């Protein structure tokens, strides 16, 4: 089976097959073999790669997978051939699309730092949400212009609720 896997910023074309409890992977030139077994509790695999023992925990997230290896969480982006092709077509200039700042968790809006029309720089805090007794400054990830402010101060917000929409600069 063939996949495109993006891991720590690098994308690689990956082909793999399994023979019984052996896993054979080819990724940009490298050949990796492992003895694998799925453990009983959760999506957890025990891998023996040339004798080295690894327990890896896989949890799907909205943008792909998170794989935990010895406490470190490694985000992994997996794409299938067609998906890959479509993305190529769409050009994937992701940063030109603008973004929406959402509440990362339930809380209360204690400050709004921008108004529609304001220009914002990547990393600039636009909203302050208080949750778990901490005030959290929520920032935009790209330069842009504020299109909408969707909440008011003191408003209680739910996890994932859109707070501010920002369009391309």
């Amino acid at each position, binding site marked *: 089976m063939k996949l495109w896997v993006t*891991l720590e910023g690098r994308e690689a074309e990956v082909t793999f097959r399994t023979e019984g409890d052996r896993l054979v992977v080819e990724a940009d030139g490298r050949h*990796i073999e492992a003895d694998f077994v799925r453990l009983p509790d959760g999506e957890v695999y025990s891998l023996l790669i040339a004798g080295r023992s690894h327990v890896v925990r896989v949890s799907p997230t909205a*943008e792909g997978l998170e794989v935990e290896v010895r406490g470190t969480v490694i985000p992994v982006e997996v794409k299938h051939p067609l998906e890959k092709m479509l993305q190529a077509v769409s050009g994937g200039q992701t940063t030109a699309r603008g973004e929406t700042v959402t509440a990362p968790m339930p809380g209360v809006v204690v400050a709004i730092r921008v108004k529609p029309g304001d220009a914002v720089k990547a990393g600039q805090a636009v909203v302050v949400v208080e949750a778990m007794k901490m005030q959290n400054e929520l920032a935009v990830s790209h330069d842009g212009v504020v299109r909408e402010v969707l909440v008011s101060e003191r408003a209680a917000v739910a996890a994932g609720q859109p707070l501010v929409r920002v369009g391309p600069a």
Partner: protein
Amino acid sequence: MPRLHRVLIANRGEIAVRILRTLRETERTSIAIFSEPDRTALHVLMADEAYPVGAGPSRESYLNMERVLETAKRVRADAIHPGYGFFAENEAFARACAAAGIVFIGPSPETIAALGDKLAARKAALAAGVPVVPGSDGPVGSRDEVKKLARTIGYPLMLKAAAGGGGKGMRVLKNDGELDAAWDLTRGEAKAAFGDDRVFVERFIERPRHVEAQILADATGRVAFLGERECSVQRRHQKLLEETPSPAFDAKTRAAFGEAACRVAKQVGYRSAGTVEFILDEQRQFYFLEVNTRLQVEHPVTEMVTGLDLVAEQLRVAEGNELSFGDTPPEPRGWSMEARIIAEDPSRNFLPSVGVIERVQFPQGPGVRNDSGIYRGYEVPVFYDSLLSKLVVWGADRDQARRRLVRALDEFVLEGPHHNLAFHAWLALHPEFAAGNLSTRFLEDHWRPGELKAGPEAANAALLAAALHERAERQRVQVGGRENGASAASAWKWAGRERGRR
């Protein structure tokens, strides 16, 4: 004073569990209280008895003084242990307990009052001849007042909530400009956290160490010094890792330090367990900061090296008995560290995280202790703080303790909310930490986003895991399952946001 048979714990989470363990070990009845969302919290499941006290928000339950006291009276509690936070340092609550004929396990209301206000505490320390950090003598009423003070003391200054503690409601000011930004935010936090928006300022020491003294005083006024704890590794004034002894101390410093701490305690007629907080400047001169009139989150490291049970000692004092060790506290043995395991995402600026504990396996084996309030399937409520567990280790010396911490973190399995296990592993392996070169600016100095990159071997394992996942999913995955390329692409863009939602 009769034996305290029935003890109500006016708290929740890991500290409520910690306290009820000692109650059980001393063959007392443990009585838990719980808010609606805490019906299935671990302290409720483990207690001998448990009673509801209201809705989720603390003010409607754990901070609902009438309800808590009414419950304590109704269930015939002999005493109340407040833990930390909530009513732990609340003079009015302590008085109300006395009025209701219930023993408050802690110092007297007068002591709490005298030390609860940071400014009064400063005065007490000065009266006891213990040095304090230069600053405003009282609350400051306006930005301008602060600016005037800055001319004499000089920036950087620290803006602090008068009623504050636990690092909440504090901000550093490098200049008049930062003051303007911080003034409202700090007073807002102070109001929200303590219902008191008074703030004051003091000189900010660039690279201070935070070192505190554990004291234990019996009813007759005998005060014992149980060694120091260094809590320098902090983020936004929130302690992350504590240890005892302090790598900055030699025997001479320790003696002077303990002696100063006991002087402050005697000055205010202290009783029960307490913590005298100091900061050390770069010359290792210590200045009095404040007294926490409660059991501290990090008390276990002191227990690990002394072999004492501080909660058991508090109960002895509350019953009017002398301390278990009389006049001579046990010699500390070895070294202990505590890592606070918090529901937050180090890779996203430590953003708090919530959710269900999907899987948890605590590290075990020699020299490891877990104090925790979670279990598999438990949903971490949004109403309370995000401390999930405390990983405490002991070693014969600092390096064994540190390596044991690394080993234990490596064993720790915690799935569900994001957490800071990997951060602690980074910290414990950092050469400056290993060398004991600590300060409260450790993170500003050494932590950079992206520090948690996995090595090539882990990356390979992750690659293989991804392949095995796809194999497992093969049936369910339709190629291009996301409606179109654009939204597949947008998955990228949203990645940041999404991860916060888990």
